[in-house]
């Protein structure tokens, strides 16, 4: 084998093993999110899970998505999660005991979701790898061009959706009691 071929093989091997490492970490920390007793610890594990997703995006050469995931999920949404949980200050002692009916309902709903997910996974062709026509699609310049030409309508519609959500939130917060 030529040396440069050997080198490309070794980099491919490295990226695959890196993928498996990061994938293992994502699953490990998402399991910790579910199993930890303290809600604050759950949120912290969720932050680490999101960080591993960022690494996944970088491995897929989607830099913009990676950094947006980093800023929006890790930097803003999870700070708000943590903020709310700290204000509530939940812990094991203050948590009210959930009734058995509620537990049963949770179990049934969870199992339904599991069956749906397994069913949909079975119908996928697992051996089809998704190959992008343009591997550099995730870079900011290309992504911007595609978003504002090919996918302009969905892009604008989703921005209107976000605007609606924002106006709705402001409206809810501003509603004052009539009997003032």
């Amino acid at each position: 084998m030529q040396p440069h071929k050997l080198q490309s093989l070794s980099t491919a091997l490295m990226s695959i093993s890196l993928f498996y490492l990061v994938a293992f970490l994502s699953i490990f920390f998402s399991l910790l999110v579910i199993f930890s007793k303290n809600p604050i610890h759950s949120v912290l594990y969720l932050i680490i899970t999101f960080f591993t997703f960022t690494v996944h995006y970088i491995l897929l050469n989607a830099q913009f998505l990676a950094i947006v995931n980093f800023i929006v999920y890790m930097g803003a949404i999870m700070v708000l999660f943590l903020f709310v949980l700290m204000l509530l200050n939940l812990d094991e002692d203050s948590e009210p005991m959930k009734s058995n009916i509620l537990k049963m309902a949770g179990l049934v709903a969870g199992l339904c979701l599991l069956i749906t997910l397994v069913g949909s996974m079975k119908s996928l062709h697992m051996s089809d790898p998704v190959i992008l026509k343009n591997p550099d699609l995730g870079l900011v310049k290309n992504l911007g061009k595609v978003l504002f030409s090919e996918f302009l309508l969905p892009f604008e519609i989703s921005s209107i959706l976000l605007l609606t959500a924002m106006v709705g939130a402001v409206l809810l917060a501003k509603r004052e009691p009539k009997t003032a």
Partner: protein
Amino acid sequence: MELAFVIEKFVLITAIFLLSLTVAAYSTLAERKIAGYLQDRVGPNRAGWGGMFQPLADGLKMFMKEEIIPTDSNRFLFIAGPSLALLTALLGSAVIPWGPDLVLGERTIPLQVADINVGILYIFGIVSLGVYGLMIGGWASNNKFSLMGAVRAASQSISYEIPMGLSLIALLLVTNTLSLREIVGQQHGGNWNILYQPLGFILFLVCSFAETNRTPFDLPECETELVGGYHTEYSGFKMGAFMFAEYVNMFVASAVMSTLYFGGYNYPGMDWVAGIVGPMIAPLIAMAVLLLKIFAFIFFFMWVRWTIPRFRYDQLMNLGWKVLIPLAIANIVITGIVITVYDKL
């Protein structure tokens, strides 16, 4: 990956790490000296000539103090809080271009650790991450004052990230790139971005005061209301780590502002100077110029701290949401219109 490349980056990273820590250490001395000057007193002058060894003495004092971890606190997170604060503060300096390419014999060495093409967004992400150290430390202390400080830090940082991001968008309209290296390259000589984005710069400056928790935005550690805010329960070197993180943050924020708006390592007449001293010395002079700009910003941070009193909390929120965000949006609209009209002409 060749060995020389790895060594080069390793040396650069170590140098920047040491530089950040040294500047942070001597910022504590500078802060007290400047406070002394502004209040018409001498400031620390006992340790060494003019107080030169004061930071070392302070560091030694921090190490020697008894470390107290409250009984009811969450031990792991109590230690993780200050560590995270210092870590996120130091991460920011990775994408800043410290000077033009250094030519050593055959090799050209870029004086930047990582030239990623989303440099600005990386800085923005690191800034938004910085609040975790404060929040985790404040919550883990299991003290109501610490918790109040942590909650204040979170809401303040979320509120001021928005105008900061919006002022960056206006800057991006001007520069057309997200790479810090290219942004600095465009400001060659005296063609600095402050000339095109004066309002954007002022917004960014105010927001960086809020993001680094400096007076007048140091509500998270407001000692008149909250004892010591998020670090009430901290002592010894963990307390020192929080304090250090603040000064490193200030250093990185100053470096970012110099890079984005004040031309980074560029200065008027740099080509003329480079022609005289040659390609070996010119990058070093440019680097010194960048450091001078950074020190000027650090001085400004301190000057404001000892001049302006702290905001009240509702004033802080009103300023962020009702003044800075509308101004930042107006700035984007004006910049967009001017660029469109200019392109049509």
